[in-house]
């Protein structure tokens, strides 16, 4: 896609279980894990919510800049706000839990409260319900490219006029089932408590320091061109990146990786205080997520005013 009519209005990452300044240098508090999500989201409404849903809500809450606690009404501008979420493993634990109970002869022990979690779109719909987002609601389960596929579809909804704003989220859990599936598939493990990130896409012309230039899909990793403007490059599945630790973290992002990359690049491009060691000032970012099996997606972001 060409996305030059869309800017990133806000961005947040939520990766518990790692040093808080590892991704955002100015961060001082560790991100709360899924079991402590109530400290940010309030207690009500979290029962039966899976870890990936909780992490995703934390990322949205922070991207919207909301005070801690359950919203008492729809978030500002909620009507007509689209939600696009990427996650591959968000509900696999519930699916397996239900099957295990059934096979043990315990259908009656399965709670009807689990029913919505058997549907893969539970993260996207839960965010819409909590924050009152009535715009188009999409759940992307597209493998390693899913994060940037979600960014692309969020931009599409804004550019087509279907939404005045798109809340784009990537989230993956770190439960035993998710970890087992990753291991079986040869996909790198993610951070110990899972991860989430959120970017808010709005039409160009509204406040937003970083423009989404393009997102496109391709079969193989592409060589990095020499020269050109100062560029932040984040890649996963290709061994590329500013340092090996970060590359490993992004490589384990799976369906969340593309949104995490977009959120990090947005923060780093615009606020020097957020840049960890090794990340230099730059005017644009080139983000690649994917795998040999799924193929790759690449997004380009430009700091507004630096390049047209």
């Amino acid at each position: 896609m060409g996305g030059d009519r869309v800017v990133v209005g806000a961005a947040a990452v939520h990766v518990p279980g790692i040093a808080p300044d590892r991704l955002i240098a100015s961060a001082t508090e560790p991100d709360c894990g899924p079991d402590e999500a109530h400290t940010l989201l309030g207690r009500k409404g979290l029962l039966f919510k899976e870890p990936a849903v909780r992490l995703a809500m934390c990322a949205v809450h922070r991207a919207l800049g909301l005070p801690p606690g359950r919203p008492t009404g729809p978030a500002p501008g909620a009507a007509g706000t689209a939600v696009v979420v990427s996650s591959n493993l968000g509900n696999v634990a519930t699916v397996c839990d239900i099957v295990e109970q059934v096979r043990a002869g315990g259908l009656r022990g399965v709670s009807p409260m689990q029913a919505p979690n058997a549907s893969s779109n539970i993260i996207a719909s839960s965010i819409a319900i909590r924050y009152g987002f009535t715009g188009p609601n999409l759940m992307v389960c597209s493998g390693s490219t899913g994060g940037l596929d979600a960014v692309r579809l969020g931009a599409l909804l804004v550019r087509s006029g279907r939404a005045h704003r798109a809340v784009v989220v990537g989230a993956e859990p770190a439960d035993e089932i998710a970890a087992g599936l990753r291991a079986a598939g040869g996909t790198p493990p993610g951070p110990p408590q899972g991860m989430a990130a959120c970017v808010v896409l709005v039409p160009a012309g509204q406040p937003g320091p970083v423009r989404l230039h393009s997102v496109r899909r391709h079969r193989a990793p592409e060589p990095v061109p020499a020269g050109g403007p100062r560029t932040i490059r984040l890649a996963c599945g290709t061994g590329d990146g500013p340092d090996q630790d970060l590359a490993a973290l992004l490589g384990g992002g799976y369906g969340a990786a593309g949104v995490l990359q977009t959120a990090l690049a947005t923060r780093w491009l615009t606020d020097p205080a957020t840049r960890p060691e090794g990340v230099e000032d730059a005017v644009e970012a080139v983000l690649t997520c994917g795998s040999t099996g799924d193929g790759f997606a690449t997004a380009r972001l430009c700091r507004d005013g630096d390049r047209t």
Partner: protein
Amino acid sequence: MRLAITGSAMRTSLGDTAETYQALLAGESGRQPLRYVAPDGVNVRHGYHVDAAGPERPYRASAWLAECVAAAAREAGLDCARQRVVVLVGTGLRELRAVERWRGDGQLADLDALHFGAAVRAALPGVEDVVTVSNACSASSHALALAADLLQLDEADAVLACGADAMTESMLAMIGRVGDESSDAVRPFDADRKGVLLGDGAVAVVLQRAPDDATVLLRGVGMSCDAYHETAPDPAGLRAAMDDAYRRAGLSPADVGLVLAHGTGTALNDPTEAGVLAGLFADARPGPLVTGIKGAIGHTSGSAGLMSLLVAVEALRHGQVPPVVGLRTPIPEAAPLPLVIGGPVGTDAGVAQVNAFGFGGVNAVCLVEVRHGR
């Protein structure tokens, strides 16, 4: 920009598109005893299966999808080397059955095959851009909406909007758990309905900028989210998707002669949907004929929307609207609606509305036109 459906294919428990349509006209049902899963364990005894009797085939939704994608692309004459082709696959259940069998039966799991990229790329060499959208029971209709947007913004020359679903043990369990008694058949809008049953299948539709001689036009797809409840539908959200579709199409409810309802045979969907349709067509009495496919092929989850769309196209093309299989006595909320009961009804309508609503309150409504060349 006018958009046309230039190729399509589907696979249901009743066969391909033509076979399914003929069976619907005859009032037949694809219902069978439930396979692959112990019926007592999940409290569900019937399903609408695609595969013939035999052992359970792994990744079979991907196999049906691959057949449909290849057939639809062939009909449309797509050239993936020269055209920008994007494929959007809508699904409710992905290949989560493979996760269940990995955990429960020790079978190998292929993480890359839980979504449909690899299956589509194998069926359509040259295509790289495949996205799996897991939007519950309205997924394939959401895919069609996004397909229209990609063409309108000139980001593709052709988009395949698809659906693919094979039933999972976990979803069967939830159906068996929340129902009071085990449903014996899907009876949309019937006073004696006992709940939903699942169907297997896949569907693919090729959308392109309309050639001059196009006969099947996609007039518009509306989307909305209830932001209300995880499983219960909200009338305001359903209506919002319909209003969005009419606004995009530049049509009014009076222009529509046929409705393919979502009609799941559940306690909540049918009265809610009937009430919203009655309100939408209140000024268009007697209003369009209303039918639905789930009594005949089960609820095919994310594939259901586009399957309804292809049946609507067949009905408009041939001027014969199939009845709602399983419907005998309509619920009171459906009294204002001209439901098709018992046998086919003739029509000269040109435009149909196709409903699809999903868990989480995700709604998509399509308006499709068949031009008869008169």
